[in-house]
């Protein structure tokens, strides 16, 4: 046991500035790491690690029982038509339609026993993307998305790049809520699989060449001379900073290169899959390499398979997703980034194990599978177990807070850090949950 005097600037779990002690007894899980505490105390001075997260968001709710948690001995109206196949880890089987992932199972970990209790898309999504279950169904963030939190508490690994990026477009529930607009995601708004891929507004308009932009900048220095202290919140100066960063990004090679997916080896682009998801995954890898700290990729909206579940999965959804995720974890491993970059894939919930009359499956938050790759976590395992029909965890039930605190832990972010919303309500990053012990 070790008592650490954190001084009067530390925040205790009730969010008040107060002199307090932190007891570090069992560091295995459940508590803060010392590094996390110190890093958070000095987050304004810059977070020192280069860790990053790539989140693949399977919007609509991916079918756990057809992907990672197959039940071949369940009755026919449950088990569906897919067969399990072995993977490169003994004893772990996944769907026959995830053959690429089966070959890299040693670089992945599946949590089969995640669950929550809200079967609505909006509320379930907000819960899984923020860690908080909203009380109303709205199409906007009431709580900040994880990427916004990371942007606020850690920032970008390289200041020339945005901290938090959504690919290819802005995610509806990926925003910053009470953290303020500055922590919203940056999105290219363009499909990286297209030959004409172009980050929105990052390329100069046709009529404006770099020389002309330079003329404008120098003219600006002589025209835009109004005092910067006319407001009380430093918004004017803040805007100056974003102008410096923005115009730098447009002209700086580093940023343009980070987004320049065409610089990738065509063979590698093929391995990821020549489609929006595959190329978004590849672009995400380029971005985190260059200094983005959190990327959320939208893996299409087709996962809400109420009808024709099996056809949609095997013909469309799974092949793209299978290739992209497998290529990503392989690529990261080959580049020695497996420990620095955490990949996560999940949606807002699982799907009803009982097949509906339209050969589809409906919303099912009672059990869902969550996939992790890298991040220095323990890979090559399947964690937790659901009952014989994949309806509910029978061991190691894990909540959204557990799932997300595992990610924050990889980034060394204190997920009990308290923010205040507009009503001055103290809101910790996560109100519940602890890192999944089998992974850390």
């Amino acid at each position: 046991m070790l008592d650490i005097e954190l001084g009067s600037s530390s925040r205790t779990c009730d969010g008040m500035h107060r002199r307090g002690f932190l007891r570090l007894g069992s560091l295995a899980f459940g508590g803060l790491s010392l590094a996390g505490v110190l890093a958070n105390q000095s987050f304004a001075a810059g977070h020192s690690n280069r860790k990053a997260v790539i989140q693949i968001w399977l919007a609509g709710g991916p079918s756990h029982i057809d992907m990672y948690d197959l039940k071949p001995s369940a009755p026919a109206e449950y088990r569906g038509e897919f067969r399990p196949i072995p993977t490169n880890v003994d004893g772990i089987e996944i769907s026959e339609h995830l053959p690429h992932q089966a070959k890299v199972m040693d670089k992945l970990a599946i949590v089969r026993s995640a669950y929550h209790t809200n079967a609505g898309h909006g509320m379930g999504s907000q819960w899984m993307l923020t860690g908080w279950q909203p009380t109303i169904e709205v199409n906007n963030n009431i709580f900040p998305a994880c990427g916004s939190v990371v942007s606020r508490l850690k920032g970008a690994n390289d200041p020339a790049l945005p901290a938090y990026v959504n690919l290819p477009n802005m995610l509806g529930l990926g925003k910053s809520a009470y953290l303020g607009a500055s922590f919203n995601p940056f999105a290219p708004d363009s499909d990286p699989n297209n030959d004409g891929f172009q980050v929105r507004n990052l390329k100069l308009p046709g009529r404006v060449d770099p020389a002309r932009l330079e003329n404008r900048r120098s003219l600006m220095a002589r025209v835009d001379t109004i005092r910067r202290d006319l407001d009380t919140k430093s918004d004017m100066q803040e805007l100056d900073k974003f102008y410096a960063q923005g115009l730098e990004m447009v002209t700086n090679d580093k940023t343009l290169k980070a987004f320049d997916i065409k610089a990738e080896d065509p063979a590698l682009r093929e391995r990821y899959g020549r489609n929006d998801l595959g190329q978004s995954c590849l672009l995400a890898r380029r971005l985190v390499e260059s200094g983005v700290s959190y990327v959320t990729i939208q893996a299409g909206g087709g996962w809400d398979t109420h009808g024709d579940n099996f056809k949609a999965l095997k013909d469309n959804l799974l092949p793209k997703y299978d290739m992209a995720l497998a290529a990503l974890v392989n690529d990261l491993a080959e580049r020695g980034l497996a420990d620095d970059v955490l990949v996560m894939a999940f949606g807002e919930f699982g799907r009803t194990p009982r097949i509906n009359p339209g050969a589809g499956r409906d919303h099912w938050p009672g059990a869902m599978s969550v996939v992790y790759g890298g991040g220095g976590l323990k890979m090559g395992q399947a964690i937790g177990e659901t009952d014989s029909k994949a309806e509910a965890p029978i061991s190691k039930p894990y909540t959204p807070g557990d799932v997300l605190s595992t990610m924050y832990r990889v980034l060394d972010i204190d997920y009990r850090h308290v923010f205040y919303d507009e009503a001055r309500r103290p809101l910790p990053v996560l109100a519940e949950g602890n890192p999944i012990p089998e992974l850390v």
Partner: protein
Amino acid sequence: MLNSSRELFQLLVSSEGNDVTQQASYQSSHPEIATVDARGSITSQAAGEAKITVTMGDASVEVPLVVNADSGTRQVNFRTDIQPLLSRHGCNSGGCHGKASGQNGFKLSLFGFDTEFDYGALVHEARGRRIDLAAPERSLLLTKSIGSVPHGGGKRIETGSDAYEMMLAWIQNGAPRPTEETPRVVEIQIEPAERILQPGALQQLRVTANYTDGTTRDVTRNTDYGSNVDVVATVDEQGGVTAGEQSGEATIMARYMGQVAVFRAIRPHGAPLAELPEFEPRNGIDRLAAEKWKKLGLRPSPPCDDATFIRRVTLDLTGRLPTVDEVRAFLADESPDKRSQLVDRLLDSPDYPAYFALKWSAILRNSRLAGADQAAYAFHNWIRDNIARNRPYDEFVRGIVAASGEWQDAPAINWYWQSRDDQLHMVTADTAQLFLGIRLQCARCHHHPYERWGQEDYFGLAGFYARLGRKSFGQPPPYYNSSKNTTGERNPLTNQPPTPRYPDGEEAEFSPEQDPRHGLVDWMSQPENPFFAKAFVNRMWGHFFSIGLVNEVDDMRETNPPSNPELLDYLAEEFVTSKFDMRHIVRLITTSRLYELSSAPRPENEYDNQNFARFYARRLIAEVLLDAVDGTCETKSNFGNISFNARAVDLPHEGFGSYFMDTFDRPQRVSVCECERSPGATLAQVLLMSTSDEMENKIADGNGRLARLFKEETPVPTVVEELYLAAFARFPSAEERQVGEDYLNSAEDKRKAAEDLLWTILNSREFVFNH
């Protein structure tokens, strides 16, 4: 006079008007009767008499003290003694055991609002391990608190501290349950109430609790303190305030057993002023603002020039930039009252109701959720019409709160429709926030932590909506007043449907034919209503001055007092006596000298951010900025399914796609809070403004301003001048003319050079801020 059983009393010592409680030294003549610590806090020990000697430099004072014998062994009481400790040490806060899910299986009511619940949780749950009557020292309550067994919240108190001894004594007494007779705290008082403090000055506070049985007790050491502006003043756990380096005002909140009181720490900007010759008040706003400045030693910035004024007031009243012609005419106008004439002209123009309809429509959540497009148009137009005709505000509110019928007749039912059936309870908190300036949503589940509002207040207000019925057809469906309870909501305190009770007032009764919602508006619009008028005038103040007199504008509470209470009272009074004339308040504000002040700080007010000694600049909101860009470029944005002439501020709901407006944080209308708009800057905004095709196309538009100027073969000096007039509502300075003309004249392609100049102007801080 104290009782013998470890009662506390905080001395407050001052010398020449300054608090020296923390600098003085203290000695007790009879420590066995009463001890005193270095901070002047006396603790009684036994019956008898003693003297406390207070020494400060050469001076000393003796304080005689009588300690009365107690009637017996002191009974430590759960409600009066133990619960305050749980609050004081953060155990029942929202981040720990006070949150809805508790912490590690142990849940307390938030900040101790529910004594019965907390007693049960401590004494009866966890198989009695939290309280061990057989071995009191082994009670988890104690061992967790001192950290001798692992505790997620760490060590909270020291073994042997007063708090420890108090809890131990209570357990040793058998952890008695509080009874109905146990005194409750009815209010707390803080001494002093307000002080002017110089940098680094210390001020000790004393907090006294009054109980239902008429007794009082010094609770200085068991109160929870907080400052709302740390850089102005901080407060420690023992109620010691330290003034900071920055001038301004801080509110120190003291919270004890659900009651709050505040101390106002004033760090003056300079020595008090007898006169402010440079500022001659024009109306009550000016007079009361100036009174405050004198007290704080603040001097106002000079009035802004005419150009700044026409830009400022046109943006604030109509959400658009003044046109080049308007600016030229105004600057040339020599009449002495041209500013107030301008205000009247703008208020009479259709642009004023258009802009304020946007403002209200956003916070009234006028949305087209589930495709109620027509209803959203109707509600928007209804709001605009009310403002155009300047209907009294209470009638406007009645049209919303008591809306009944089909949307064609009562478009405001779209407000109810936004909450559907499953969230209909939201109208209760929304009513409080919108029209009373009270944030009551917390009190649905627990006592408001910073205010006196509890669940009985929330469900009292909910009672007015409990009979709101709706038909099952239409988008939105008709709403009506039912004779029976319809919402199915239950007050958890009574397990009955909520019954109407006015906030801070009496129960209300309504016959089945009466619509309780009308009763609610009747109550609101009474002249003496303490919330209604203030909430409106404060919201308007926030609109014109960037922040409210109470800020945020809809968060009025004791612990968030107005920066200038007299000024808020004056405006509320004006509003009431004018029979809720919205335009009267708007005109009072915009014709005040205060509103005309320059935003440029001077040394005597550079740290002022609460008292409006200068105008506080702010970024244009999304819709207004887009209109300003289009106005400057003489272009139109196409919003799709609406008149081609519609400006962004005219859009009736949020459903018109616009990357521009979304990038500048147009609200989605999911909240009644004005804070749904964020002024924060983002990278995407900068890229949009500086390197997007969208902006470049506006700048170089074939039918835009530059195209016209070049087609008309306008001379270069006039081109430069017109761009400044259109964007900044002012003529360029001689130097700016020189820079602009040189840039155009030296370019091969003057049109392109003019585009560069326009780009520069649109990307300048002067353009995107109202200053």
